[in-house]
């Protein structure tokens, strides 16, 4: 083999080796950057997020429902300033559910998820609107998604006596599922302890922030062999 060709091959081999090493380093740096961005974002939110405080706040034992194993939630009583206003009270309880998780094993709602809005319609429907991270970072699975729903519903019903059912939105929209399995197109029951039977108000009107009822025609099917709905 000519000497020039040997030198060229040698240089090429060294260049490829240097390139591979650089690529691995670059990949690691990008991963590290992504992780630090995520934790930075969380830390910033924790520092800058305005504490929900109202004149009627009273420090009391709030029951927050975190995971106790992979398939159930249990109540932990934490000292929390809770408002007399049911909406503010609901926000305070849900914020505590996300931010005050005692340990990673007990976490139900992803750390990066935010409560974007919470309100209660006059018919007793609580609307909890979470950021996209609720869907994108909850482990996909019936059991894991149900755990998230249970923790939200049980925390609300044990701290806010007014609402009788819960609707979960993701970034202001109705989501088909939480993370691929659990249905978010419907409602979840809320059964506050010692609650009287619900008395819905048919004349209730949703606030401007809530999605209007769909004007679509009713979709029906007859038992056994009906057409599927229009999509």
């Amino acid at each position: 083999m000519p000497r020039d060709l040997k030198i060229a091959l040698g240089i090429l081999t060294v260049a490829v080796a240097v390139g591979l090493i650089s690529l691995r380093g670059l990949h690691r740096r990008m991963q590290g950057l992504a992780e630090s961005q995520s934790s930075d974002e969380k830390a910033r939110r924790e520092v800058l997020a305005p504490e929900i405080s109202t004149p009627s706040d009273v420090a009391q034992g709030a029951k927050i429902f975190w995971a106790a194993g992979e398939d159930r939630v249990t109540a932990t009583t934490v000292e929390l300033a809770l408002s007399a206003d049911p909406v503010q009270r609901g926000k305070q309880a849900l914020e505590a559910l996300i931010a005050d998780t005692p340990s990673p094993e007990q976490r139900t709602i992803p750390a990066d998820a935010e409560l974007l809005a919470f309100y209660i319609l006059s018919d007793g429907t609580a609307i909890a609107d979470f950021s996209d991270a609720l869907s994108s970072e909850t482990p996909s699975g019936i059991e894991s998604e149900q755990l998230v729903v249970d923790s939200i519903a049980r925390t609300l019903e044990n701290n806010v006596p007014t609402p009788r059912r819960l609707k979960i939105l993701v970034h202001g929209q109705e989501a088909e599922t939480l993370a691929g399995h659990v249905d978010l197109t419907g409602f979840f029951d809320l059964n506050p302890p010692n609650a009287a039977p619900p008395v819905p108000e048919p004349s209730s009107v949703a606030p401007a922030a809530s999605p209007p009822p769909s004007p679509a025609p009713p979709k029906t099917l007859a038992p056994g062999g009906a057409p599927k709905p229009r999509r």
Partner: protein
Amino acid sequence: MHVGPVVVIDPGHGGTDTGARGSSGLVEKDVVLQVGKILRAELERMGYRVVMTRNDDSNPSYEDRAALANAYRDAIFLSLHVSSTGATGNTRAYFYQFPVPFQATDTSLLSNVVKQGSGTAIPWEEAQRPFAEQSRRLANLVQIELMHRFSQSPNAPTPAAVRNLRSVAAPAVAVEISSVSVSDPIALTSLSGLFAASIARGIAAFRPMPTPVPGLP
């Protein structure tokens, strides 16, 4: 002509929707398709007619999956899933849990109900509601069989709002096995046969074939 129930097997997810993903590369959509094919063979061997919502890496909509079951008068719907986390071999059967009727909601739903022929039509979104008790009973029988073979499984089915079940106008159950988080995929895929056989036994206990036909394809 076939006599008896039609079992609709629904392997969850498919296509770009992988479902749960494990660090070993195991994805839910592949595992449930494998289990679905084994379950199909097992049920056909027992004499059932079986159809599948997907036989390949496609991803039918929730409505298309339900519509397949709703096209039969005597169907049983089985949706298959794998969890993201959990000890290997923990299995659960789920039946759809609707919220307690809420007057404001119910009023609007009732206005959507129309009569068709001699039967009462059912709102598509609520198609599973009239079958709630049958589904709970089917889930219970499947869970009993699973519990006998997978010791970490609970002894009772779990109510949950599983999207695949909501619009199915037939007894419908979702079954989930854990999990794609196993370090060695074989630890999970080797359970496919036992998992499928347990589900088949639960179905047979729920709706036995009147006259089993051994060897029917």
